[in-house]
């Protein structure tokens, strides 16, 4: 059923996309092909194929096994990563990276706490030095920008 839901998500996307595509002009004033031309073809095809796919997914039982004992871990790591990206602009890249590394390693690798702490500091600091200092690509500073100017 989850499989059909995923096809269903593509169908929903396809419907919204196609609806908007029909709001775009098919031709421009000079009689040339307009911006709506390609999206209308794509959208219509995607609606047809994903609708067909949803029907097939519901009707025929899955022939491959997608069950897992680790759905909890997948969900948890996803949520931590979302929090990480959200924290980037608040805490700044360095602090966010350290926190993310520590929390994720705590979830996945509880045996080696000392190694976890060392890695959670070493990797972010070296990445920060590499990207921010050496390559000069500004990583988000977050609230600490107030202090460093």
């Amino acid at each position, binding site marked *: 059923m989850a499989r059909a839901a995923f096809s269903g998500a593509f169908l929903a996307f396809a419907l919204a996309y196609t609806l908007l595509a029909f709001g775009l002009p098919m031709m421009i004033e000079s009689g040339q092909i307009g911006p709506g031309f390609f999206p209308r073809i794509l959208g219509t095809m995607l609606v047809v194929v994903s609708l067909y796919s949803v029907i097939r997914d519901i009707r025929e039982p899955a022939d491959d096994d997608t069950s897992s004992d*680790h759905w909890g871990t997948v969900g948890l790591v996803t949520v931590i990563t979302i929090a990480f990206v959200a924290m980037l602009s608040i805490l700044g890249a360095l602090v966010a990276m350290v926190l993310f590394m520590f929390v994720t390693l705590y979830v996945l690798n509880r045996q080696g706490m000392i190694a976890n702490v060392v890695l959670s500091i070493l990797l972010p600091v070296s990445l920060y030095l590499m990207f921010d200092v050496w390559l000069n690509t500004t990583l988000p500073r977050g609230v600490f920008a107030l202090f460093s100017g």
Partner: protein
Amino acid sequence: MDVFADLIYGFSVALSPVNLLYLAIGVLVGMVVGVMPGLGASAGIAILLPLTFSMDPTSAIVMLAAIYYGAMFGGTITSVLINTPGESSTIASTFDGYPLAQQGRAGPALVLCAVGSFVAGTIGLILLTVLAPAFARLAQSFGPSETFLVVMIGLLTLVVIAGGKWRYGVISALFGFTLATVGVDLGSGDQRYTFGSPELITGINFIPVAIGLFGIGELLYTLHQGEHTEERGFFRVSGRGPELWPKREDWSESGGPMARGSLLGFVVGVIPGAGATVASLMSYSLEKTVSQTPERFGKGALPGLVGPESSNNAASTGSMVPLLTLGIPGSASTAVLLGAFLLWGLQPGPLLMTQNPEFAWGLIGSMYLGNVMLVVLNVFAIPLFANIARIPARIMVPIVIVLCVVGTFSVNGSIIETWIMLGCGVIGFFMKLYGYSPAATVIALVLGPLAEETLRQSLIISGGLSIFYTRSMSLLLLIIIGLLIAAPLALSIYRRRSTRDDR
């Protein structure tokens, strides 16, 4: 021969100290990317793209291409030592590579793979050197209708060969095309699907999408498979001593598979949409067919390892032919490379080799040198890379997630792109889980603007669809498309009939 002169010129570009340095970095990083399960060449190249922004285009592409073919070498090590392919193109190497390691023959197996990869890479390069200019001349006669059809052939091949359910492949490709339509329309200048966001006016960048689909998506899949709870079974390889070197009969047994794998791999690599994974699997079954002792396959037969290994390296070289001469990538990794070309304003196509010889021939020259570096690294530094392969997934996963996030952010300093990357990561996980084709999505995203533009031009030129069947070259390509669609349909009808007869 002017090809020869061009090649000499290419070497002179590649041998500059700066390019040599970046080439060395590229092959090293490629090896590391290759041995890290869960981090494939396409994600590796996409994450490292921002690091090249301060370089000149030739150095940057030399380094990125080295990551691409370096990963092919590196992926072998994990296949043989821990039975986990570091790259999808080294799946076939686990069939006989891991049994060989179990028999204590990991050393000779890896040395022969390195030599096979080197031989195949070099044969592939010689063919590339000779054929690319010829291909470029053929491609010069291509009009927009042919280009459009070649894009379609590439995607269709990918969908047909991927072997999964074709409807998922088609959805994946169409999804990539729809993402490509976001932003300003090239023909009219109108905005499409931007929802007033200034960041979307320039369209959806392929880098966050590729990093999300192949980086985060792959990592989540690793967790789903429970790899973070496993200790890696592992075979030691010593760096010296007689047990590292293949015996005389090993060499003589491997010569044929190397030669066959090289040629087969190159031909498959040149076909848009096929590529290294397909090439290595085809080579495995070819070796099994020609072998006088097919019963040894799967139990540690050297030809079953050396053939596919040679084949995937030749294919990665072969796939540079359509990439350089047509601007059509055959795989996800080459799609990311194409995106990198475009970032530097280099439009691969028939004119690239004549208009940017420094770049095109410099790249080809650097690949010869890169192959030499890789064979040396692989023979003498196997234990070093084997140690990287030992890092367990539970530690690897957080490291690579951080690399994905920081790598994406540093491209444009955009938090929106970082969110797009993360969203694509979740989508990529489900695509992988249910058998969709993330590679088709990325290729369609990169080629979307080209497909739309050439379709539009074709229709304007002919005022209808007639251009697709009145030009003989277009008609030929159209027939190929017809066959690509008809073959799997016919096959499935035939299968359904025969199962019905069985009942």
